[in-house]
């Protein structure tokens, strides 16, 4: 029945697709723990994300070599700040990068020390300045030591 030929053509295309997907779709693609609705994916991707390189190492990584700075910071109100917040991620320092950045810009300090009078936030409890009034344009490290959080 020649009138069925279009149907056979469509079925042939569908069959080709179903055969091709056996080769193209990875074996681990399917329904996983979270079920059909939330867990339909390529399982190997989980391990790919876990393999991403860690850049921020945390204070524990710095203190063995930089014990003096660590001691200074720990006895100042800046002990709550991670070294890498101001110096950038340690990555594999000292092999890579050999030196971490020293950001002396005003804006780094103003992140916390622009005084904001917000009654329901701990921000109001941080001693701060009006950046337009207090030595505008000058680097804070010219007078203040960030590791000691000292007045000049």
């Amino acid at each position: 029945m020649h009138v069925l030929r279009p149907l056979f053509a469509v079925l042939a295309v569908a069959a080709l697709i179903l055969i091709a997907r056996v080769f193209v779709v990875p074996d681990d693609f399917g329904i996983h723990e979270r079920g059909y609705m939330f867990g339909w994916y390529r399982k190997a991707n989980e391990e790919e994300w876990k393999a991403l390189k860690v850049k921020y190492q945390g204070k524990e990584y710095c203190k063995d070599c930089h014990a003096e700075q660590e001691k200074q910071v720990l006895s100042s109100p800046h002990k709550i700040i991670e070294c890498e917040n101001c110096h950038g991620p340690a990555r594999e320092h000292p092999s890579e990068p050999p030196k971490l950045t020293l950001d002396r810009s005003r804006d780094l300090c103003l992140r916390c020390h622009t005084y904001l009078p917000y009654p329901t936030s701990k921000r109001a409890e941080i001693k701060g300045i009006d950046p337009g009034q207090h030595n505008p344009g000058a680097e804070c490290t010219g007078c203040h030591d960030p590791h000691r959080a000292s007045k000049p």
Partner: protein
Amino acid sequence: MKSILKGSAAVALANGLNGIFRPLALQAATRPVRWAFLVDTYKCIGCGYCVKACKLENEIPFEADVSRTWVERYVVTKEGEVFADAPKEARYGFITSRVDLGMGKFKDIPKDRIDKAFFVPKLCNQCDKPPCVQVCPVGATYQAADGVVLVDRTWCIGCGYCIMACPYGMRFFHPQFHVAEKCNFCYHRINKGMRPACVLACPAGARRIGNIKDPDDPVAKVIMTQRVTIHKPEYGTNPQVYYIGLSEEVR
């Protein structure tokens, strides 16, 4: 021909039954780890170190106006007006008291007119019923067994349906790879016993992460015993980021 039809019908039936009864989900129901996040908006000081850490840790171009996490500032005046901003996702912190109203306009609110003002860090809620996962046409985004929603960069076709679907606006297009991108609780860090970059960076202790399935976990204890809330429960997505001090002004 008949046997092929019978075989394919059997396969289809098996798939359908698996989809309805979900035997693997029974296994998932006893999962030992479910990550939950705790944000304390009283403690957040708006320094933006979390945003900086996130961008550097997760290789999001720093100057691009997108971020996996950000901090919003809310200033509520005594007249009841609410001003909110997140200048450059707070990657440089909040260094001025002038609120950025967008389109080049700023508003300086005098101290005596402020009723309450606070900072709200936001990140992907890793919802228990994520709408973003449901709409993905190709299965590129998914929820892992421990609750974190991930995006398979090699599989994503960049249609942006998930970005539209997220009611919290947490997803965006990666400016380099042109696929969907979102916070994944620093999946590479939490699986090594480290904390996410934003949690590490926060000097005020406003961000914390824990395993809500572990009754001895300090974050789980806070969620169980203190007054916490989720953002926009009416969306029905069961988010797993819990807030202390969330206010109704928060969008």
